[in-house]
């Protein structure tokens, strides 16, 4: 599965456009992690638990988008973008979306 943020793939022709595919994920840490990160926040540092949480969320959203594309018979996704939202406090929320296509 080829995934690109570009709107086209220069060396491969698009045979068929399938349409929108997306995947989203919301993840949180447990309260003890939140307390630890809050303490670290007081002195300033990388909040590595939150970095990990965001990375997990991003990978899960990407995988779900790829699964969506695969289910619809695509072999590539173009114009991929990420969006974040703010529903739950202290949670990482990521939506990945793009256009599923079939390329040569």
């Amino acid at each position: 599965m080829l995934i690109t943020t570009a709107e086209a793939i220069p060396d491969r022709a698009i045979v068929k456009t399938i349409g929108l595919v997306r995947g989203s994920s919301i993840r949180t840490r447990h309260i003890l992690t939140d307390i630890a990160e809050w303490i670290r926040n007081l002195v300033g540092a990388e909040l590595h638990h939150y970095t990990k949480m965001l990375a997990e969320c991003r990978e899960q959203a990407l995988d779900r988008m790829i699964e969506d594309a695969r289910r619809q018979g695509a072999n590539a996704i173009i114009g991929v973008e990420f969006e974040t939202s703010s529903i739950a406090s202290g949670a990482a929320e990521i939506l990945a979306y793009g256009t599923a296509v079939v390329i040569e």
Partner: protein
Amino acid sequence: MTDDAPLTDRQLQLMAFLDDEMSPEERARFQREINEDPELAIEVASYRNLVEVTASMRVMEPADHEMRRFWAKFYNRGEWRLGWILIFLGVSVLFGFGIYWLITHEAIPLPVKLAVLSVVAGALILLVNTLRLKIRTHRFDRYRGVLR
């Protein structure tokens, strides 16, 4: 020269020369000085080398296993353990005392006592249930290994 010693005029000029911060006239004048003074020429070459080396340096991100090792070491420190133990002890005592106070306080009507205990018991049941589910499904979480 120590780290705290102020820079000499010559060093300031030299740095300005290498960082291209001189006017064309100043630059030409300094270039003449370099041509006439072999010691200064050597110093300029040395500083130029230093500039090139520092410009080529890149901050490397530590590898994931190094990060894991660092944080494991960090969290295993006694201070963190002691801190968490004290927090747990404090919260447990406060929680226990709150329940005890609620049960033994005569001014609070019985229905209110029962309602509060019911809310606490319900929340605990839900918490334990969710925790059990989390423990059971945690090992199947394929994103556990994602670090950054």
